[in-house]
């Protein structure tokens, strides 16, 4: 691995099968970056959840919108962006799935899992207006303890 940042960009269509494809490409990239199986699983799941949201909520399953997945790897971390062409959203509007009244909800755990599984997580507004989920995993993996569910970001 050189000191420079390595960058891979993938443009996917708004299709259900893009979810699995994005996850598999992520696992491949995370493997090459030296993450162990447990970390690869968490990174892959986070991208999966991000792409599902881009597919469902951002791009509203519309085929003429794209999902942009970007990997940036440097010595410190693997940074991943999932950008869609939707209206964007605010993290503050997302209910806490751990709240007593939400525990038995059948959805609402995607963002929570990304936060728990990644070291950095935030949502920005993409240059095109869509939601851009930005998440990072420290590299080489430093955190081997149980996933924390802290709500920073």
């Amino acid at each position, binding site marked *: 691995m050189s000191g420079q940042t390595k960058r891979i960009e993938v443009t996917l269509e708004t299709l259900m099968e893009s*979810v699995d494809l994005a996850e598999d490409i992520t696992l491949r990239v995370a493997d090459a970056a030296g993450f162990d199986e447990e970390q690869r*699983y968490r990174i892959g799941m986070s991208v999966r959840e991000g792409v599902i949201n881009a597919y469902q909520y951002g791009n509203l399953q519309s085929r003429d919108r794209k999902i942009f997945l970007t990997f940036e790897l440097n010595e410190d971390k693997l940074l991943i962006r999932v950008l869609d062409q939707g209206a964007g959203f605010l993290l503050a509007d997302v209910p806490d799935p*751990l709240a007593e009244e939400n*525990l*038995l909800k*059948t*959805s609402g755990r995607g963002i929570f*899992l990304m936060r728990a599984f990644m070291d950095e997580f935030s949502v920005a507004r993409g240059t095109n207006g869509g939601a851009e989920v930005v998440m990072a995993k420290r590299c080489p993996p430093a955190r081997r303890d*149980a996933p924390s569910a802290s709500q920073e970001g």
Partner: protein
Amino acid sequence: MSFKATAREIGSATVMDLSGRITLGEGSAKLREMVRDLLNSGHKHIVLNLGDITYIDSSGIGELVSGFTTVKGQGGELKLLNLTKKVHDLLQITKLFTVFDVHSDEQKALSS
């Protein structure tokens, strides 16, 4: 590995041996149908053996919650058996571990 399910009737209970992934577009929808079919045919005591489930995403978690509350709402019970470490951790961090009726011994799951 795609989602698979096979049923075993033990006394008044149905043990569903599940394998593969419970994810959006794969196992989630099948799991929902399965639970619905069981309820429609009068099977209200359901044990989901997750020992060979390799992966669950947030959609899969939602489907387990849905199955749990639906079965309960019809006066039955849905229990989870043999969680792998990954699934255990998922239920732990989402605070669902204590919501579900989780077992690691089939006999005890059936008799409890």
